[in-house]
């Protein structure tokens, strides 16, 4: 047992899904040609003035109330000064001492235990541009900049240092992603960078009340990367201390390929951002009535949906948790039920089993899935009607997942129709009984497992297409 305790706090950046940027009317659309979603304001040309997008404020308040924060009555923007070419103005418009929301929390669940994680603050800011390094970065003597992302609205959510393990950090990020997806203010795609996460992490001897020196870890682009990077960092810090060394306060970057964190020393001067109120933007006075309206209009959040699924559909706590962990998955689940398939448990089994297995193996999200809820329902109906067996259904499902074809088409193409016709099955059963007199004898003398062998022979003779329930029943009748 380690006698160290890990202390982690996360800073999560979320891009808000508005039509236009935070301080100008340029589009926020992802993936445009470089430097085409830009205007004089977000390019930082002289003489321009930022004008604040009201939707950003509404969304930031929505995030704040969804994670139980107190919403400020008075808030303002500040300039964070630093020189970096992804920032054409040489300052980022952000919030310093009067953020939009503070003092919130969210609950995570690990090993059936609920833990409350404090949220320090939520503030609004503009995203920076993207640096593109072409060719060999060590040989090339220049960098390229695309300002399309500059000015896309962000909220930054800062947690208290309440997380005590990489697993807790991951659970917190997953929960935060789910909540924000449910509120509808962001699609939270880590692979496109609309959800990003940095971690502050330190270790200290168990029982100590003083925090150890922390390192800031960047460049973790997936839940798995977050957990792996933090596990590595815990190990590194403990080993450094055990060897009599000292932890240096620094920023480190996660190298996913090598599985290590590396120091980013000397990139920047001491973090001295010389914040001051932005004179181009006037303060916000937030009407508590508006906040109440936003709170009242908040959609159902993951925890609420989870308990509803347990209560109304009889899902186990675990299944309800998995189904509601993504808004898209929960919506998919409900779509299947709305389309008339009433056995929620079966739908949930297919989603949490086969579907998630296939999605994970391809690294896809549920909203990229080719199988439409209606097609899944159709396939489930085919199982219920005895047209295909459960085993065939798995093949059909994989094929649907690959091609998006209707189950009926796949079943026809692959000749997967289950044999449920008594005459055909009966003929095969008779043949198998005739060919295996010894086994029949064994069964009659009380060896029940002899039946399994006979079933196997029948399935083999029919290439797995015989309806297993009918085969079993018929065998027992005939041997009776």
């Amino acid at each position, binding site marked *: 047992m380690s006698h160290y305790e890990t202390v982690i706090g996360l800073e999560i950046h979320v891009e808000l899904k508005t039509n236009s940027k935070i301080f100008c009317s340029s589009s926020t659309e992802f993936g445009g040609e470089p430097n085409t979603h830009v205007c004089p304001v977000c390019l930082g040309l002289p003489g321009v003035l930022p004008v604040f997008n009201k939707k950003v404020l509404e969304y930031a308040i929505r995030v704040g109330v969804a994670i139980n924060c107190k919403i400020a009555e008075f808030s303002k923007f500040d300039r964070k000064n630093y020189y970096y070419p992804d920032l054409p103005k040489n300052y980022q418009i952000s919030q310093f001492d009067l953020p939009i929301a503070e003092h919130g929390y969210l609950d995570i669940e690990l090993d059936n235990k609920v833990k409350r994680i404090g949220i320090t603050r939520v503030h609004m800011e503009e995203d920076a541009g993207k640096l593109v390094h072409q060719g060999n970065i060590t040989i090339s003597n*220049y960098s390229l900049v695309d300002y399309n992302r500059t000015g896309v609205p962000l909220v930054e959510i800062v947690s208290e240092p309440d997380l005590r393990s990489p697993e807790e950090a991951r659970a917190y990020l997953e929960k935060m992603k789910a909540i924000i997806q449910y509120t509808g203010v962001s699609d939270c795609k880590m692979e496109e960078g609309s959800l990003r996460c940095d971690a502050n992490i330190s270790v200290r001897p168990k029982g100590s009340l003083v925090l150890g020196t922390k390192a800031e870890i960047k460049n973790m682009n997936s839940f798995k990367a977050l957990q792996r990077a933090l596990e590595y960092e815990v190990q590194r810090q403990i080993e450094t201390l055990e060897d009599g060394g000292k932890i240096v306060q620094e920023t480190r970057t996660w190298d996913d390929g090598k599985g290590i964190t590396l120091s980013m020393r000397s990139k920047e001067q001491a973090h001295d951002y010389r914040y001051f109120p932005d004179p181009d933007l006037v303060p916000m006075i937030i009407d508590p009535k508006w906040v109440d309206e936003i709170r009242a209009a908040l959609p159902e959040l993951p925890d609420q949906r989870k308990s509803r699924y347990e209560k109304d559909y009889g899902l186990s706590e675990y299944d309800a948790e998995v189904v509601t962990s993504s808004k898209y998955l929960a919506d998919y689940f409900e779509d299947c039920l709305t389309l008339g398939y009433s056995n929620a448990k079966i739908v949930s089994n297919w989603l949490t089993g086969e579907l998630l297995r296939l999605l994970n193996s391809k690294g896809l999200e549920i909203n990229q899935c080719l199988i439409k809820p209606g097609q899944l329902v159709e396939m489930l109906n085919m199982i219920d009607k005895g047209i295909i067996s459960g085993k065939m259904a798995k093949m059909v499902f994989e094929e649907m997942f690959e091609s998006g074809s209707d189950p009926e088409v796949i079943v026809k193409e692959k000749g997967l129709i289950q044999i449920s016709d008594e005459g055909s099955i009966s003929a095969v059963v008779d043949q198998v009984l005739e060919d295996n007199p010894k086994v029949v004898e064994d069964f009659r003398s009380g060896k029940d497992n002899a039946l399994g062998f006979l079933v196997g022979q029948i399935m083999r003779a029919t290439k797995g297409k015989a309806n297993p329930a009918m085969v079993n029943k018929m065998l027992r009748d005939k041997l009776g």
Partner: protein
Amino acid sequence: MLVITIADVEYVALLSRLELTEDEKIKYTEQLNAMLEYAGMLEELNTDNIQPTAHVLSLKNVFREDQATGHLSQEKALQNAPDADGSFFKVPKIV
């Protein structure tokens, strides 16, 4: 009152990526101190019951609606760039 030293000027110059000669450092230290001294007059006032100023105007809540309108063309966006490469701004290497 706060006094600006040459070390302060060197630090701010470093943060601002400015290269200053020794003569300039002395000159700016004097000038910055003169400015601070002038602003120091405000210390004569009693501000115990005054809220910190967030903005010099009494305006508040100036918003725009969330509508995306036209952009600059890529050509225009890059027109004044000190250097460009195809569709990108080109800058000295950043690691």
